[in-house]
């Protein structure tokens, strides 16, 4: 007989709300009392057990594993990653890539190259923490070592989070409830405060503000991206964030990057956008399925970035005027 069977229900249900949820989900009604779980189960009519869809020993074993699992989730949540190392494989012709790149927490690496050149493949290699087992033969080290099986496969706190243009919110919930659900499963200490922070940060990234009651499926493209980025930076379990093309979505890209860097994330962005590409510390150039080179952002490029940002701000102003129903008649003056 398992140890959990002799636990009185009141103690069990108060200490382990997960067990109450589980028993609810079986359609069984349970009330706090001094009766031990095992006896309570034995006294249930067989018909109820049949309806529940699990045998008594299966229910006990499940509750026991559940308690262990929740405990493991609670103490495993803080594990960070200091660096990720990418070791090159080969390009489409089988030519070896001469690359070994280490990226630290709080660093942004951009991936540039023509459409179809293999940027997404590189992101996919990082996502699955490739160990020479993908078509490119690339390998990924975490903190200088091959990540163990456990780290690679634990799902709800995966090492790598991914944001891409074709991902959408599909659940029918308001923003607050939705992010609240995430906070709850991340077991953060003060979920309400965290939820407000995520919403505020997301609103900070987008010109069009939204309220906490807005349904997530009704957010615009820009609002959706903004909320995804804020959540990834503040709430996601993953120390590594991969972003596949977020340009033109009405998101303040500079702030978005600052937010991710501030969250001590290791960030990879596949992009054609100069505002993003030059803001990163380095960029990987992809050609013909392989890593063709790594460019460090030079001081000249950083200066140019400032100019490009001013041009971008001018454009943003024009957009904002359009949005407000104003005319664009005064001659446009581009900053120098």
């Amino acid at each position, binding site marked *: 007989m398992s140890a959990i069977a002799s636990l009185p229900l009141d103690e069990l249900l108060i200490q382990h709300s*997960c067990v109450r*949820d*589980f028993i609810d*989900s079986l359609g069984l009604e349970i009330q706090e009392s001094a009766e031990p779980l095992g006896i309570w189960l034995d006294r249930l009519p067989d018909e109820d057990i*049949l309806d529940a*869809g*699990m*045998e008594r020993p*299966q229910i006990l*074993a*499940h509750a026991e*594993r*559940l308690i*262990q*699992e*929740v405990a493991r*989730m609670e103490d495993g949540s803080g594990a960070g990653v200091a660096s990720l190392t990418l070791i090159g494989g080969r390009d489409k012709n089988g030519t070896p890539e001469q690359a070994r790149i280490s990226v630290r927490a709080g660093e942004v690496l951009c991936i540039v190259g023509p459409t179809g050149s293999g940027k997404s493949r590189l992101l*996919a290699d990082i*996502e*699955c923490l490739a160990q020479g*087992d*993908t078509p490119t033969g690339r390998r990924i080290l975490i903190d200088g070592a091959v990540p163990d099986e456990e780290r*690679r*496969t634990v*799902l*709800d*706190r*995966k090492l790598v*989070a*991914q*944001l*891409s243009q*074709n*991902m*959408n*919110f*599909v*659940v*029918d919930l308001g923003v607050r409830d*939705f*992010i609240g*659900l*995430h906070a709850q*499963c*991340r077991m953060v200490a003060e979920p309400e405060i965290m939820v407000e922070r995520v919403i505020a940060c997301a609103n900070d990234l987008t010109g069009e503000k939204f309220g906490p009651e807005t349904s997530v499926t009704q957010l615009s493209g820009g609002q*959706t991206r903004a909320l*995804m980025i804020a*959540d*990834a930076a503040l*709430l*996601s*379990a*993953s120390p590594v964030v991969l972003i596949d093309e977020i340009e033109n979505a009405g998101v303040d890209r500079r702030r978005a990057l600052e937010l991710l860097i501030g969250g001590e994330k290791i960030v990879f962005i596949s992009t054609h956008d100069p505002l993003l590409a030059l803001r990163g510390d380095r960029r990987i150039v992809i050609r013909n399925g392989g890593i063709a080179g790594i460019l460090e952002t030079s001081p000249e490029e950083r200066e140019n970035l400032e100019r490009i940002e001013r041009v971008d701000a001018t454009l943003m102003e024009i957009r904002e005027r359009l949005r407000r129903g104003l005319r664009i008649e005064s001659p446009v003056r581009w900053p120098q």
Partner: protein
Amino acid sequence: MQLITVAGSPSVGKTSVILRVAELLGRQGLAVGVVKLDSLSTSDDQLYAQKGLPVAVGLAGSICPDHYFVSNIEDCLAWGQRQGLDLLFSESAGLCNRCSPHIQGVMAVCVVDALAGVHTPKKIGPMLRLADLAVITKGDIVSQVEREVFAYQVRLANPGARAFFCNGITGQGASDLAAAIARAAPTHSLEGQRLRFPMPAAVCPYCVGETAIGETHQRGNVKKMRFADQTEVTP
């Protein structure tokens, strides 16, 4: 031969996932085949055949598809052995959320669809709760937030299972899944093996062809709803 039971609601991506995994296992030199059990019709056999996988189909017709599954799984196993397979997948749709084809000692996979909403894992019965591996598909079209919440819900619904994300279209995640499946214990015979959980006894009058509605026609295993506004009068 290894037998793997794959179950999941209609259209979650069972066939897609099996195809991706079969391709990887085939490359390792394993002879892989599939039996597909469904209720009325299926075109999955064509998808499997296109990839050169031996496939057999069973249609339950007027019988509960999951009951039909149990009555036929031994014959499916024998078919697989005659084909000289190393590994046989059975694909069946868990249509009622209550039946589950999982057999003790036989590796059991449940496929769930991330699009189905974050509360779905809780609602899937023994099919998910008693599986060894839980596979989450369609993660590519939902947000990271939903993926994390969904994975967490799957973990609560079955804390004993290993869970995987697998994209049925691109195959992203399939290699870890294939490695886990390749480790399944062999099944030589199913004689005397047991289901992990009994399927509901579905012999109400309507099971055997009754069509008339009304109290007088309802004999046998009939179960009535209880309504909150009438709790006092119900015995």
